[in-house]
């Protein structure tokens, strides 16, 4: 299964197991979604459980809040993460806070799925990585898979979770991993050594990172597409790096991070989003608080630049192997 198929399978499993799971979003019903993530689900589960919506993100998330208040488990899709902003108030002021403000009377088991990230020539409006702003909101969980196995297991866990979850899907790696060399042919997931995705139900727990590569010299923290770019880079450079795929940004697996940084004494953080106030800033602060006396070099961040996503200069903007390599050299030089 590629990542699209794994995500489709996760929703299929949840729809079959729980009559309260409901999937909604633009173009997701009959057509099966612009990325085909919901293909076949309406035909199989019926159009009152899998249906198209108007082009209205405030409405998509707002009605999902109402559905959750009724007792359903809505799984709304926002076609691109860049379009989430019109629905932001319903997410951050409503879904995120309802458990708290009603002292547990109204719970919000909503999973908002949305493709995010760049590397597909999507320009300013199909490339953004807005994950940090969601981690800033009390009451939301933010999940980002990096491979088909995790995508399915994490999505099922998110749908079964009783709190609102933002599930960002790195669209650059929907069909295959990406090593950061945009001028090389893309490998499909079937040609890559990744765990087989089982057909049925399984979960990957939220809040647990994965050590995707063990190493002793430096810890590299990444998520989504960047996990693959980082892994390829450290292998090409022959660096004994420990690569951690965060998988869930909130709740964060601080234990795995702390253990690794204390072991290696060095840390590089990589994400696609703009740098200032990005999630890397939070990670750097946490590591500074917890691992300061173990650090042998300043923490480095490799991120997108603080500009809108440039269409034609996409590969200069993207934090690719050259910039990651430079940061690794810098933390390793002493």
């Amino acid at each position, binding site marked *: 299964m590629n990542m699209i198929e794994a995500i489709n399978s996760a929703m299929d499993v949840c729809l079959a197991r729980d009559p309260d799971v*409901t999937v909604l979003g633009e173009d997701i019903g009959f057509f099966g979604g612009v990325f085909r993530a919901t293909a076949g689900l309406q035909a199989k589960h019926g159009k*009152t*459980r899998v249906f198209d*919506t*108007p082009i*209205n993100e*405030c*409405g998509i*998330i*707002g*009605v*999902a*809040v*109402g*559905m*959750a*208040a*009724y*007792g*359903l488990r*809505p799984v709304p899709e926002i076609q691109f993460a860049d379009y989430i902003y*019109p629905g932001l*108030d*319903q997410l951050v*002021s*409503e879904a995120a806070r*309802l*458990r*708290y*403000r*009603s*002292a*547990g*009377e*109204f*719970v919000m088991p909503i999973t908002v799925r949305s493709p995010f990230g760049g590397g597909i020539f999507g320009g300013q409006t199909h490339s953004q990585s807005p994950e940090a702003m969601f981690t800033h909101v*009390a*009451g939301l*969980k933010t999940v980002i898979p990096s491979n088909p196995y995790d995508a399915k297991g994490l999505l099922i866990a998110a749908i079964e*979770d*009783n*709190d609102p979850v933002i599930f960002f899907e790195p669209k650059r790696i929907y069909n295959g991993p990406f090593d950061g060399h945009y001028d090389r042919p893309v490998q499909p997931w079937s040609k890559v050594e990744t765990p087989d995705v089982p057909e049925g139900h399984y979960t990957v727990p939220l*809040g647990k990172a994965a050590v995707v590569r063990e190493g002793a010299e430096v810890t590299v923290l990444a998520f989504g597409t960047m996990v693959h770019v980082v892994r390829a880079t450290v292998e090409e450079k022959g660096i004994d790096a420990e690569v951690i795929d965060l998988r869930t940004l*909130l*709740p*964060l697996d*601080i234990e795995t991070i702390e253990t690794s940084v204390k072991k290696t004494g060095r840390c590089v953080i990589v994400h696609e989003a703009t740098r200032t106030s990005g999630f890397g800033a939070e990670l750097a602060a946490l590591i500074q608080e917890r691992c300061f006396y173990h650090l042998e070099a300043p923490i480095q961040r490799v991120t997108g630049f603080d500009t809108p996503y440039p269409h034609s200069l996409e590969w200069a903007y993207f934090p690719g192997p050259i910039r990651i390599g430079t940061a690794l050299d810098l933390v390793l030089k002493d």
Partner: protein
Amino acid sequence: MSESSSSLGRPNLPPLSLHVPEPQFRPGDEAEFVSVEVLAAGITPRPDSAADAGTMRDMAYGLVRVLDDAGVAVGAWDPRLSPDLLRRILRSMALTRAFDERMFRAQRQGKTSFYMKSTGEEAVAVAATYALDRDDMCFPSYRQQGILIARDWPIVDMMNQIYSNRADRLKGRQLPIMYSTKEGAFFSISGNLATQYPQAVGWAMASAAKGDTRIAATWCGEGSTAEGDFHSACMFATVYRAPVIMNVVNNQWAISSFAGFAGGEATTFAARAVGYGIAGLRVDGNDPLAVYAATAWAAERARTNKGPTLIEHFTYRAEGHSTSDDPGAYRSADEATKWPLGDPIARLKTHLIGLGEWDEDRHAAQDVELAEMVKAAQKEAEKNGILGHGLHQPFDTMFEDVFEEMPWHLIEQRDQMRDERKAAGV
């Protein structure tokens, strides 16, 4: 050079001008609502609740009224309620007013931070609630305390919330009057305006998708119809024919902005329904029978899968927006008394007296009884504490209910707070 810059635009064309709405009256003006067209009671036809929305567009520009100026119920919209039910509606409205009076004073006495009265628009919440089933889900705004009162929700419980005291079911987390009770089918109130609108539609969609029989109702002010959420809700409600009643409480004022700033100069708020193909009714919101009848009509429509109804309740906010507001600073002092549609409690009282089912003495006695009841409830609630007396919930509760299970970072912050307080000796 004149102020209107001649350097802008083409010199041979007249300069454009910007229209900024201005209310009819300001402080010091004498209010005269001559421009408010008050249609006679009883003349508005009552379409079948299954009628196609397209056949009833005129309803969005009319005014459904049942009680005439003498308090007599007339016309096709007369819901023909039993005297018992009429007395219950009257009592709930009067209790709402007595409750408002008492809690407003409590705020002025420093017992809580904030309060909002519904004076003059009690019918909008109370009469509508009597036309709904008790398990129909309400998504109110902040001025529909009458829903809980009409559902006989304990007023001590409401006061506990206002005082954020140790018996507050919301653990002191919400502003006063932002009630929430799932059991009372009353959704948690948000301060962000009109957010409840798409939520109500979503709840109604879920009910329909599940083959349930319950419907949803939601309320917002006319000012909030300017919010995107309102339009999102109309869009989803019409597309999926959601069994929902969308109430717009046109009380003329959104804090200090008059209805003109929400488009009220150009059209009615009920007419918002027309563009969406939704059934729209414009109703005398100070006529409890009209509010009841319109709600019952819309409920029947929703329950028979004929879809949503948008009801504009034409009313007047007789008091300030909240305890933090000074209406004397922006509107004519006598607007409330000059409001041509009168007072909903007085109108229903007159109606019942006309029927021979009520009299002034019973009314006066009821007012005394309700005032005593509210006073006793207040005493009861204050035993659990008032906001002015400080912090009633255990500190740890601050960290609860953010998530189902407390994640490590909140546990750390909670423990840090405990340690800091311990070290500080508190």
